[in-house]
């Protein structure tokens, strides 16, 4: 959805090649050289492993850097929430209901007089935990299946592809809603449901990459000198699959955050009194006629964080040069 304009980016995708090569020396020279044996790869950028000079290229993309810094700060603050002198996020103060922001309460107080700032930070914990867990689980399910489908081909591949088609026919939100609802409301169950929803996309991506790489000369060469399949997967294939997978994982983490917020907004995620950004919106919405301003903070947090994930995904795509790799 967002890859359409990367060709107009300020970061030149061609930086992936030539000019970074002197930096390679420390990194697996064997792999750098093997690319030169593939004439077809010359104009494309398979010649240099994507992670070489990656950090240098990523840092050059200022927007992605800002997004990454924001996310790191958010993660650190959320992890240390108990130790940075926040107020108790569940402490009610019924004499100060719906109070606007003040010196004592930076983002104001909600309908039970609880500190909104503390709740946003604790909510970040829940939201980030759910989205990272969902992506991690999805990868654990999908990567082996994708490798299996791509390598074995035949009926195994056909079956796996038809099953992922079938999962994708059910609208993502409906599937996540139904699975997490049946498992019972909790953050972990939301993450499991989202992992099931996202896994088919990852399976498809890995499979496509494997099929693309499988017939490459250097994989064939490895095979012909008797390299074991697992060695080929680890040394030759995973390196090629990794870049588009990382990009996809970053973007999916943003989707997961959004989906978690939607599901907890509908009452399926973390349960009261604990906060997540979605449940904060549900409560704020119930107060819409008394304290509509409460809607801005959790919603803004969701929007900014989703945007950060997407921008990081774009930055990773440029830095890893996945677009030119045909992903």
């Amino acid at each position, binding site marked *: 959805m967002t890859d359409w304009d990367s060709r107009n980016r300020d970061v030149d995708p061609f930086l992936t090649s030539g000019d970074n090569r002197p930096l390679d020396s420390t990194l697996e020279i064997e792999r750098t050289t093997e690319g030169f044996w593939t004439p077809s790869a010359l104009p494309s950028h398979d010649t240099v492993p994507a992670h070489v000079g990656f950090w240098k290229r990523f840092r050059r993309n200022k927007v992605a850097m800002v997004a990454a810094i924001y996310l790191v700060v958010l993660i650190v603050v959320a992890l240390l929430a108990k130790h940075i002198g926040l107020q108790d996020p569940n402490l009610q103060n019924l004499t100060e209901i719906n109070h606007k922001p003040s010196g004592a309460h930076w983002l104001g107080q909600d309908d039970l007089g609880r500190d909104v700032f503390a709740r946003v930070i604790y909510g970040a914990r829940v939201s980030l935990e759910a989205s990272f867990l969902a992506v991690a689980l999805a990868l654990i399910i999908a990567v082996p299946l994708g490798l299996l489908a791509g390598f074995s081909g035949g009926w195994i591949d056909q079956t796996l592809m038809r099953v992922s088609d079938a999962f994708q026919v059910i609208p993502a939100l*409906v599937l996540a809603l139904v699975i997490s609802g049946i*498992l019972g409301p909790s953050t972990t169950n939301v993450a499991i449901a989202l992992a099931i929803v996202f896994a088919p996309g990852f399976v498809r991506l890995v499979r496509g990459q494997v099929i693309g790489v499988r017939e490459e000369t250097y994989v064939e060469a490895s095979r012909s000198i008797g390299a074991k399949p697992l060695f080929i997967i680890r040394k030759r294939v995973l390196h090629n699959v990794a870049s588009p997978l990382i990009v996809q994982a970053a973007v999916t983490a943003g989707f997961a955050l959004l989906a978690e917020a939607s599901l907890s907004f509908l009452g399926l995620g973390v349960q009261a009194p604990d906060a997540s950004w979605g449940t904060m919106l549900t409560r704020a919405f119930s107060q819409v006629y008394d304290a509509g301003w409460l*809607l801005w903070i959790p919603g803004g947090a969701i929007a900014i964080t989703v*945007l950060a994930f997407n921008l990081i995904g774009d930055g990773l795509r440029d830095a890893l040069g996945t677009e030119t790799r045909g992903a």
Partner: protein
Amino acid sequence: MLTFILRRIAALIPLLFIVSIIVFGLILLVPGDAALTLAGGEDATPDRIQMIREQLGLDRSFVSQYLTWLGNALHFDFGRSLYSNQTVVSEIWQRIPITLQIAGGAMVFGLLVGIPLGIISGIRPRSVADRAVVIGTSAAIAIPSFWLALILILNLAVYRNILPSRGFVPFGESPYEWFRHLLLPWITLGVLTAATIARQLRGALADVMSSDHIRTSKSVGLPPHKVVGKHGLKNASAPVLTVVGLQIAYLIGGTVIVEFIFGFAGLGTYVLTAVQRNDLPAIQGSVMLIAIMTVLVNLAVDIAYAFFNPKVRIE
């Protein structure tokens, strides 16, 4: 063309078969003793637990339960809700029109807004108008649609009394009120569709506009609106059609949240209520019907695609 359509329809049968296994397999996710959990946990009366056990045939094997369910589903019978005595199909049937009105209107909104924006920015990439569209659509994609709904309600219904915040008025009762009540749901759902269509059209159009035959049409002195309309848009329409197909699943899924926020008794709130009450037959029936709806709409898009692009038919 006819063989193409028949082949596509034939391909749907195994797909829907796998979907049916997934949908019925949801019962395996019910924690603990399924009959007990579905009856409402520890507070349930033994009678009710027994009734649910019998109604769903829970003491039989999974395969036997599935085959019974599938046999009924082929006759469009998804059993009865555990909470009302009505059949799931009749309950869903009453609710589908509202959902289709929301999703359909959102799609119209998406096309009406997305296509002009896509054309404006696709004709001249990197112009000021293009930059504005790119930034605007990026923001529209990052903003959660349900939050957008809340903010719209806050500003247009609560602070200013311009539009109603809840409820549905049938078209037959008052077309004007019908429109007023549906406008916010349409915008809420349609913004993302509009942004996606605009981006896709921009990309496709920018590609086409830089191609040789467009340069030729320009150089022979064809007026700009003809260059864009006759040659540019025609060639850029295929990727847009694909996006429209993909958006339909999103719109049907998105109605769950929109119906919840605006208090519409459509298919989305039906699924939500069924999930909240652990009403398994209702969950399975509605998810299956939603999947069938998505598949059929995608079939229609595929056929339209083949109609515009004969190359597809041969593959």
